[in-house]
């Protein structure tokens, strides 16, 4: 690969001219530059990725609300006058809100204009009012001031994602609607505050009402199943293979198998879950139970490999010492080797769990993509998990879901950073060099 062509001579002599040396040094510098460029590309991509996500997602953490005066008309809420909780629950609060909105703009009369005006209030705003009345039925008949979420298009307008400079036909809100919005703003009825709803609500079709609570709980349940299956199984396997297994064809097969399983595409595990656990054993679809089982099968090899490395690092002198004072081989392992290897085992487990936490594809296969509004209560309830929620929102066409997706990614990344941080801490704090 030398740059010079060797002259045809019986005994080739090295070209020691300064010009060649210069070229060689230039090549050295170029090579170094390529390395720096490659590093910069990697770092730059990470930077762009994080910047994009934060830039698109920070706005999901606050929400725009509008303040309305609403007359809680007894004829609408409770025509019978019985204060029956069922009647109060089923009353048409949307109508009350719309009436409240219309009193601010009395000159709106045509049907189309009314519909445009109604879009200012989120279609889920009635729950705010309902909860208020359910909490205090004596309010019926009075006029109350409520803060309700604004419709998602106007939320986008307030956050500046819908440009007013675009021609009217190219944006989702009309000039008339912008005029109404501005009027509300001048009356100081528009407020922006921290979006608690994002952390307390389940999924929704309306971006302004959607939250991550359901998927976070689903993730937690799934991880619980994964951990409680994968950890004991993996540690038992690793201890057996590392400390007790005879060296024969069978253990060789197991070893090759584990290394292979670690590299099997995750979606194949999803197919396994679908065919075996759902198809054959009849476990419920979309449940954290099945998701956890599938993920634990995926995580097993990771934890096994880490545990074996940790067990290998414990010096033989420890084992010999324990044998010397009369411990049985199992006692040597359970009383001495495993406790000493525990930090390494736990680190490997956390890293495996972190990988399982970000896994999406196998969970799509077992139906965790269903649209689920509620928060799951047990491992057999239908649920979704955070990465799948991200996937679902990323697929939604509404502009409001873009920021929600990015915000959910931020929540996921925070969890991952926390878990990896704990792993690094454990390694630093407890790792022993023998």
């Amino acid at each position, binding site marked *: 690969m030398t740059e010079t062509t060797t002259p045809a001579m019986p005994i080739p002599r090295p070209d020691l001219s300064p010009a060649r040396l210069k070229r060689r040094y230039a090549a050295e510098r170029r090579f170094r530059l390529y390395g720096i460029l490659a*590093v910069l590309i990697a770092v730059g991509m990470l930077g762009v*990725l994080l910047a994009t*996500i934060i830039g698109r997602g920070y706005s999901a953490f606050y929400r725009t609300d509008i303040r309305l005066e609403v007359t809680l008309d007894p004829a609408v809420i409770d025509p019978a006058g019985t204060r029956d909780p069922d009647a109060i629950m089923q009353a048409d609060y949307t109508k009350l809100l719309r009436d409240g909105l219309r009193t601010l703009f009395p000159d709106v009369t045509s049907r189309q204009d009314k519909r445009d005006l109604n879009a200012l209030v989120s279609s889920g705003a009635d729950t705010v009012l309902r909860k208020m009345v359910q909490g205090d039925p004596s309010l019926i008949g009075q006029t109350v001031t409520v803060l309700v979420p604004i419709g998602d298009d106007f939320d986008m307008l307030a956050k500046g994602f819908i440009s007013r400079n675009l021609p009217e036909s190219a944006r989702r809100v009309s000039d008339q609607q912008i005029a109404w919005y501005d009027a509300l703003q001048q009356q100081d009825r528009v407020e922006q505050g921290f979006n608690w709803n994002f952390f307390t609500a389940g999924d929704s079709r309306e971006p302004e009402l959607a939250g991550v609570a359901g998927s976070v709980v689903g993730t937690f349940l799934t991880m619980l199943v994964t951990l409680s299956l994968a950890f004991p199984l993996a540690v038992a396997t690793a201890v057996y293979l590392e400390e007790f297994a005879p060296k024969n064809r069978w253990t060789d097969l197991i070893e090759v198998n584990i290394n292979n399983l670690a590299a099997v*595409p995750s979606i194949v595990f999803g197919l396994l879950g679908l*065919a075996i656990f759902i198809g054959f*054993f009849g476990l419920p679809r979309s449940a954290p139970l099945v998701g956890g089982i599938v993920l634990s099968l995926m995580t097993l090899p990771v934890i096994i490999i880490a545990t074996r490395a940790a067990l290998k690092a414990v010096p033989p002198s420890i084992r010999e010492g324990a044998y010397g004072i009369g411990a*049985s081989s199992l006692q040597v392992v359970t009383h001495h080797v495993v406790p000493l290897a525990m930090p390494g085992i736990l680190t490997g487990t956390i890293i495996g769990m972190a990988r399982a936490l970000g896994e999406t594809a196998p969970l799509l296969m077992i139906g965790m993509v269903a649209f689920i509004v509620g928060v799951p209560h047990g491992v057999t309830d239908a649920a979704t998990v955070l990465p799948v929620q991200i996937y679902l929102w990323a697929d939604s066409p509404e502009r409001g879901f873009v920021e929600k997706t990015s915000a959910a990614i931020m929540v996921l990344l925070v969890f991952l950073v926390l878990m990896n941080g704990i792993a690094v801490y454990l390694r630093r704090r407890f790792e022993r060099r023998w």
Partner: protein
Amino acid sequence: MTTAILAALLLLTFLGFTLGKNRSIALAGGNWKKLHSLPSYYGAYVALWCGLPALIVFALWIALEPRVLETVILKDLPAGLAETGQAQLSLLFNDIRNIAVYGVGDRTVDPAILAAVDHYKSLKSVSFAALAAAVLALATAGLAWAGRRVAPSMRARNRVERTIMVLMICCSTLSVLTTVGIVLSLFFESLRFFHAVPFWDFLFGLDWSPQTAMRADQVGSSGAFGAVPLFAGTLLITVIAMAVAVPIGLLVAIYMSDYASRRGRALIKPVLEILAGIPTVVYGFFAALTMAPFIREVGEAIGLSVASESAFAAGLVMGIMIVPFVSSLSDDAMNAVPQSLRDGSAALGATKSETIRQVVIPAALPGIVGGVLLAVSRAIGETMIVVMAAGLSANLTANPLQAVTTVTVQIATLLVGDQEFDSPKTLAAFALGLVLFFVTLALNLVALHVVRKYRERYD
């Protein structure tokens, strides 16, 4: 419900442990030297006898109950309902189960089905009672039997240790069972698929349009299942990804090991770890929302027509995702080259880059190739990036600016949503999964073999 049984079982096991322990101490009469094993081993012995058989029965019961219930319920259905196909029957059973759990709601249901629901509910409660009785009786029996056998001369420790050893062997067999499960489930579903679609048509057909009709009498009810466009698409995206990942990953590894200062290394390493730890769904979002429009704009600026879901965007982002994978594997390979080779090269007057290019990389080449093969298998199996950023249209093209689809995308789209379980459309996903599994398996086996063999050379 079942949690209560498990809790009771746990309680009984714990009771067994204390009972065995206390009994052994009592039998020894305060003189522990009379005992063969430590008292806690007698406790563990009783606890194992109490908990283990009951737990096995519990697990088997839970696993088999739905199957048994399904058979019984479907057998007792009135003749009119029972005379449908197998697929309808399993859907019907699902329906019955859902009604039993969530109630009818406000739809109208055939009274025969309602009767079946009642039947299901009563069977379910009988099954639950029987399960509770069986598990608790077995646990108590085990406890009593083992408790009576506790004696100072009994070799409790050896028995307990042998049981634990057997349990550990069972655990380590699980990984083999997983592989067997994967192969069997993929194989049998694929076999059913190949009954409907000939094997060679699937493997070498050039036309992929799996949209089968909803009703049997509809026109064009059988889709085309030629998988070549999918293989080509997967290959195209993989090639793009590797074209990004291999040079960058290799150069990063070289720079990290030979050029970077300690400080620089401490900065770059976490970046690579973060890149490796970011979930693929995040990369997918990035590819679909940032990279694809960006490439489209750049392409339009220089006068190229770029599809909005171009293979290039997906491949590029996938390449970035694989960079840390390639760099860590090639770093391992290059670290395994003995220092003496580098020193020898330096002594001959070679510069650092000449040493790397002419000595280290050729010596580490098998390891690097193994690592690249592993990366290829990863790129082929990667799902989320392509699901979100590559298209669904099965174009047979080598143009990276057009939309292509991949094997994993098709598996995901064929199986997401509600379908009957045995339409060719659903089964096609398993056939694709089988191909995917064997291709990645072959790649992994070769790669692991190469890496291992190479590592031994310098050890």
